[in-house]
């Protein structure tokens, strides 16, 4: 039994101020390295320990994390844009001109927001492709695969609703083309389309609906879903590469009593 020597950070980490913030000492030993993960709301989505294999770049290419990072960039730049943008048919386009021409770093912020959005759609698709080809949708990760599909649709929805906001010819006609597809759905198509647009065609009602979906409804749903998704990765026993080699013979999911995925 090896006995830990007193940490040299003890004067700090055992002070009352530190202890009122953190319920652990300096994370330089196994116990505190566990506590730092479990007692922090942001870090607790991670497991305390991870398998070395799951850090292998050529397995996941970090695409899930990259999607999450781009989502973060989008929130940050999106909130900045919200300070100037007005979702009104008369004022949206002038606001865009303002952002581009007179607001410091406005054009740059808009660029960041738009390119991250495109990149996020791409990253999420590629992430799904990697999850599929590595067979990571199988037991016990079926549910997380479904959460993922929800996230894919939410990502597309967020991107699509954002597309209208500049209120220029490009966005107006792209959304007109896009929503006309909804009209083809038998029976409910017309209703769905007018629900989305708030009227027969793209106008003020559509703009305010797209705006509300884009800045509130969809991002909130995505934050919720991303949290469930990443937490669930941990609950399902980490990345599927951890399971490779454990179950070698081909047996249906419900045959043998499976080992509880540990986290």
């Amino acid at each position, binding site marked *: 039994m090896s*006995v*830990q020597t007193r940490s040299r950070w003890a004067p700090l980490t055992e002070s009352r101020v530190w202890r009122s913030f953190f319920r652990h000492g300096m994370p330089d*030993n*196994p*116990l505190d390295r566990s506590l*730092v*993960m479990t007692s922090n709301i942001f*870090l607790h989505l*991670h497991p*305390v*320990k*991870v398998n*070395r294999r799951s*850090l292998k770049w050529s*397995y996941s290419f*970090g695409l899930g*994390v*990259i999607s999450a990072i*781009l989502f973060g960039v989008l929130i940050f730049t999106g909130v900045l844009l919200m300070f100037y943008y007005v979702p009104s048919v008369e004022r949206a*386009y002038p606001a865009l001109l303002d952002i581009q021409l007179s607001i410091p770093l406005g*054009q740059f912020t808009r*660029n*960041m927001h738009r*390119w991250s959005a*495109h*990149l996020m759609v791409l990253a999420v698709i590629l992430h799904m492709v990697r999850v*599929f*080809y*590595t067979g*990571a*949708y*199988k037991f016990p*990760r079926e549910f997380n*695969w479904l959460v993922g599909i929800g996230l894919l*649709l939410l990502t597309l929805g967020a991107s*699509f609703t954002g597309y209208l906001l500049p209120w*220029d*010819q*490009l*966005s107006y*006609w*792209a959304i007109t*083309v*896009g929503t006309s*597809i909804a009209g*083809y*759905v038998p029976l409910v198509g017309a209703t769905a389309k007018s629900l989305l647009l708030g009227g027969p065609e793209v*106008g003020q009602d559509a703009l305010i609906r797209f705006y509300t979906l884009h800045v509130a409804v969809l991002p909130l749903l995505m934050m919720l879903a991303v949290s469930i998704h990443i937490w669930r990765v941990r609950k399902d026993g980490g990345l599927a*590469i*951890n*399971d*490779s080699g*454990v179950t070698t013979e*081909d047996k*249906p*999911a*419900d045959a043998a*009593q*499976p080992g*509880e995925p540990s986290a």
Partner: protein
Amino acid sequence: MATSDLPTVTDETFPKRTNKTYALVELMHGEGPMVGKGPDGTVFSFPVVLLIEIILVLGVTLAVFLFSLLKQAPLEAIANPLVTIDPAKAPWYFVGLQELLEHMHPTLAGVLIPTALITFLVLLPYIDRSRANVGIWFSTPRGKRIVLWTAVYSMIAMSAYILLDNAFSLREILRYIVPEWIAQGLVPAAIIALIVAIPAFILWRRKASTRELMIALFTIMLFSALVFTLSGFFLRGPGFKMYLPWQMPNGYNPLDGL
């Protein structure tokens, strides 16, 4: 909480050398969570995982940052419902759908096929219940070959379908002979179904596993979507007519619409 006098957990649980000898008391069937996972190759997430994540945050942000310095987000004239722009394209991730709409009845292209694809993705983990080779790219070398073949196959088949249907459309010939739902619905649906069914049938004859079948179907879906997206994005010009990318009339550049 005192951090002193803690045993090093790993040494306790998985002693490397021990003088104790064990007696076999009983054989149990079943799996414990750690069976076969032995003294595991795990590391503490703190700080390794966090460092990797910080590096990724910096890398991704820097990439977007640099790109944003170089390329401006587009902004055209203010929206005008009275003046259509030509071509009017959906955002790139839906332009494959728009391309599909050029080739068949809108209910088929805009509703039935997308619904079928999403249904396929949703049901996938419940259809393919095998648990072999989880966490391995393409599962097996044979899986990898299937990906390769079906990828090449679907790129050729779908490109041919787009070009042929564009050049002399069977649907146009049938237009005044049979009802619309046959010419625009049934005929293209049958062609697409045939393109998908051929490799699936070949694999089935070769006793492919469910996973291998799913690999084939997913790959066909992925690369067909790629072909339709590329075609809609790069080959469609004014009037959504087909042009070579470097021969676009009116100086139209698809990349301006990003």
